[in-house]
């Protein structure tokens, strides 16, 4: 059974293979073959996932760590103790992530095979999608921060390539696309800086990057439960008896019990489960452990026997970063720990010039991680790239920018829950950022007309929910929401893609152009935007399947009972409530702001339904729109089913009638219990009827309100204005939302102007002291003029494309100033050299003189 986990490397290898085939031979293959390869690669990862899933179920959810056989260590310098192996971690958390990545990924591959039909770079698209899958799976399955980072960068790269996929569109659209791609890349690089710093700090502090070492017990609490209870969870709710979420779970349970019976008393077996280096070698270590602990491993015990239920037998350096951090944080003043190699570790971490307390270090690490997460998961202040990234093809938006990649930041924080648990301050910051993001993005979504922009801001907002959940310690709720969100947001994006496709089709039709080149040819599109909701309306009858599924997605996102969103959003709110009321955490109170965000969600989603599907068609294109092909609608239907049922994965306890008795089928807290094996500080909360009712009422009220405003064919008035915009009372509110809170402009004022001033100052100093005569004219005169112009039109110059490009411009500006020192004259260079000589001599002499 354990050898099942050995196929884990395949989950990365298969999509890589797909990438290579499609990348190098793709242009020679036809569409059908390219898509077949892409879909096969993707679907096979899902099959691998099924195997891994059944492996976990058959092994009491004990994590496996899988070495890549051909890679003997990845980065290894024994002399300095640098050892970063290429290891995949198969535990409940990573398998959960892999599950929806591969599943949603496969559906989107299928969808894309229809959507991208006719694109000249069809094969390239599938190559990129497969590459994305490979990197995403590296990200979630890596057992060390560096692998996580490799995946992290890799998915960023794929995102960059895919956002700019249509760089060659005409009429400036291509340029916009490539600018969006660049913005995404650069914003992510800023986040990556945070990640890198976090990694370096972690390595410095702990001397390793492994999340958990192979011999280590992840969650002592669950191990004890396993050892004593013999069941699959401490609740004894026997989730093993429940029906499988994705299949396989049910038939697993008997196998598990059988296995337990077989191996009664065999400690070696279970130790090797928790510690298998390559799993199939249960050789010496396991047997030795069996001898040592054979007696304590109670004879004749009915349940499975665990030799070690905690990590006390391990020395400090045999632990991964999380367990090390916990041990260090428990130390008192002046206490030290044996590292196991003769040295000791204390609370104070030495950074060369200064020392920091371990608490400070953990806070720093988590804050840097947060910076990384704000980049990848599009949180304030780095979220600006995500809405622009909608320039990419719709499957990309669905897969990368809604379901998977953007959740990487949340995943990383959940993975690091031990650290966030220790860092109260960081958690508070996380909550604040999450709530602010959820609120502001929800508000902005209200005023958008682009169908995908609405969804994009909605994604940002929902990610804010998840981040806030991490902040209040509701890791399980965050993961739960991530899964359900992946289902319904992918559904909504694919649905919007279907709508765009349909409208565009209709547009072609209306203009009596040839139907066969309906791909993405833009030659008559300069005045018509198929993504603008003002151009739609009344699509309900034209595209019935799309409508039905879209409606389900909307209700799920709005959090209506019994759709998936209700359960997951409710759990976040309930956990915040508990954190606020029971634990008295300030973060919990902050998180209550999410109620407002939830109401906003329902509002803008219903507005979208009204604008797109209800009422009567407002353009000819909408009139002529038609339903999409089956390869696009089938994934919609599958996702719609999941959006409907996904919430039952984690039915809370104490729910009573609400569940229709479904907990008999799905079990209670199935997901949380399952995740608890790898998320140490997971919090399993009970149902809060009050919260559920309040949020439900808010959502329904918001929908009713939206219906009042936009319903009955009032979605867009005759002047093409939003009703809110037309009404003078609400116009400022709408305008603010429509202008995206002036976020990009604020960035401009906050960063660009001061930076420009600094740059000007630098330029002047350099100029006066160094090359006065030569570039007096070019810098002083032109420079001041330029600054003057910049200051008088702050928004005009650097900021059109938002903060990121603005910073880019600023750097270019500094760079231009510095570059002028390069006058082209040898003697000037020689003087610079001599200045350098004198400076170096003085610098080197200083310590001698001081001494």
């Amino acid at each position, binding site marked *: 059974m354990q050898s099942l986990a050995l196929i884990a490397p395949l989950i990365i290898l298969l999509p890589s293979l797909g990438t290579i085939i499609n990348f190098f031979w793709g242009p020679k293959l036809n569409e059908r073959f390219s898509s077949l390869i892409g879909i096969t690669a993707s679907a096979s990862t899902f099959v691998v996932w099924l195997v891994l899933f059944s492996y976990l179920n058959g092994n009491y959810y004990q994590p496996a760590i899988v070495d890549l056989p051909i890679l003997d260590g990845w980065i290894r310098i024994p002399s300095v103790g640098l050892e970063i192996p290429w290891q995949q971690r198969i535990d409940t958390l990573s398998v959960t992530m892999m599950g929806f990545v591969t599943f949603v990924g496969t559906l989107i591959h299928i969808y894309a095979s229809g959507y991208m039909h006719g694109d000249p770079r069809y094969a390239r698209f599938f190559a990129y999608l497969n590459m994305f899958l490979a990197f995403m799976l590296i990200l979630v399955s890596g057992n060390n921060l560096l692998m996580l980072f490799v995946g992290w960068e890799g998915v960023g790269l794929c995102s960059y390539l895919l956002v700019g996929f249509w760089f060659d569109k005409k009429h400036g659209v291509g340029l916009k696309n490539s600018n969006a791609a660049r913005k995404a890349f650069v914003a992510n690089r800023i986040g990556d800086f945070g990640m890198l710093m976090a990694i370096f700090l972690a390595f410095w502090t702990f001397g390793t990057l492994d999340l958990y070492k192979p011999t280590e017990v992840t969650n002592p609490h669950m191990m004890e439960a396993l050892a004593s209870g013999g069941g699959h969870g401490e609740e004894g709710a026997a989730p093993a008896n429940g029906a499988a979420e994705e299949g396989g779970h049910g038939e697993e349970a008997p196998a598990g019990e059988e296995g337990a019976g077989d191996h009664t008393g065999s400690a070696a077996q279970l130790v090797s489960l928790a510690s298998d280096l390559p799993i199939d070698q249960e050789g010496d270590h396991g047997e030795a452990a069996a001898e040592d602990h054979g007696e304590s491993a109670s004879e004749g015990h009915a349940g499975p026997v665990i030799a070690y239920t905690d990590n006390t037998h391990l020395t400090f350096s045999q632990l991964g970063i999380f367990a090390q951090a916990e041990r260090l944080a428990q130390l008192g003043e002046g206490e030290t720990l044996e590292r196991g190699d003769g040295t000791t570790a204390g609370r104070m971490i030495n950074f060369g010039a200064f020392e920091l307390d371990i608490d400070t270090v953990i806070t720093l690490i988590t804050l840097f991680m947060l910076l990384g997460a704000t980049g990848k998961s599009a949180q304030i202040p780095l979220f600006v790239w995500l809405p622009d990234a909608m320039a990419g093809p719709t499957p990309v938006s669905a897969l990368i920018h809604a379901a998977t990649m953007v959740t990487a930041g949340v995943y990383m924080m959940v993975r690091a829950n031990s650290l966030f648990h220790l860092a109260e301050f960081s958690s508070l910051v996380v909550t604040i950022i999450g709530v602010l993001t959820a609120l502001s993005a929800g508000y902005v979504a209200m005023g958008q007309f682009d169908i995908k922009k609405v969804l994009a801001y909605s994604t940002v907002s929902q990610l804010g929910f998840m981040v806030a959940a991490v902040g209040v310690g509701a890791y399980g709720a965050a993961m739960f929401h991530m899964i359900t969100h992946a289902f319904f947001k992918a559904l909504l994006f694919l649905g919007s893609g279907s709508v765009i496709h349909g409208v565009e089709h209709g547009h072609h039709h209306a203009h009596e152009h040839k139907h066969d080149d309906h791909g993405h040819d833009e030659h008559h599109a300069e005045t018509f935007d198929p993504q603008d909701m003002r151009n739609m309306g009344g699509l309900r009858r034209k595209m019935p399947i799309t409508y039905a599924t879209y409606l389900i997605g909307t209700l799920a996102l709005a959090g209506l009972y019994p759709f998936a969103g209700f359960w997951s959003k409710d759990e976040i709110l309930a956990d915040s409530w508990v954190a606020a009321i029971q634990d008295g955490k300030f973060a919990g109170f902050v998180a209550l702001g999410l109620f407002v965000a939830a109401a906003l969600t329902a509002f803008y989603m219903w507005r979208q339904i009204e604008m797109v599907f209800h009422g009567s068609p407002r353009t000819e294109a909408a009139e002529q729109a038609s339903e999409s092909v089956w390869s696009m609608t089938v994934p919609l239907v599958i996702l719609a089913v999941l959006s409907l049922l996904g919430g039952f994965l984690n039915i809370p306890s104490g729910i009573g009638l609400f569940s229709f008795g479904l907990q008999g089928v799905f079990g209670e807290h199935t997901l949380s219990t399952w995740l608890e094996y790898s998320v140490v500080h997971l919090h399993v909360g009970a149902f809060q009827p009050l919260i559920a009712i309040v949020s439900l009422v808010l959502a329904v009220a918001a929908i009713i309100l939206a219906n009042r405003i936009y319903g009955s064919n009032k979605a867009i008035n005759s002047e093409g204005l939003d009703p809110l915009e037309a009404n003078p009372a609400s116009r400022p509110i709408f305008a603010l939302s429509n202008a995206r809170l002036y976020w990009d402009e604020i960035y401009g004022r906050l960063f660009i102007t001061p930076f420009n001033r600094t740059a000007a100052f630098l330029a002047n100093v350099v100029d006066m002291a160094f090359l006065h005569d030569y570039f007096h004219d070019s810098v002083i005169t032109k420079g001041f003029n330029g600054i003057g112009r910049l200051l008088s039109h702050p928004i005009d110059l650097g900021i059109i494309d938002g903060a990121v490009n603005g910073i880019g411009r600023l750097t270019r500006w500094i760079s231009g100033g510095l*570059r*002028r020192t*390069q*006058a*082209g*004259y*040898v*003697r000037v260079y*020689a*003087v610079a050299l*001599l200045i350098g000589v004198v400076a170096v001599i003085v610098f080197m002499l200083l310590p001698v003189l001081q001494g």
Partner: protein
Amino acid sequence: MVPTEAYIILSMVLFAMGAMGVLLRRNAIVVFMSVELMLNSANIALVAFSRHWNQADGHLFTFFVITVAAAEVAVGLALIVAIFRTKQSINIDELHLMEG
């Protein structure tokens, strides 16, 4: 007996004068001469130190410096000749086709 420091300070003054020549003169040939002056002053220091330590290493270093200087001069003068043929000038301030 003149102390070694005296030689070193003399050599350093000459070295600085050579450096000044590189910075101030526009005639490429004179710039080269200034570089030669700098190398020579280093030679003085080397020989002085060599006497101080009463061993020949410094002398040998000097020997190599002289040889290297000869090689450099040959290449440098060839460059000057080549540039003169192209530009009709050996003013190093006129070498600024490239900048920025």
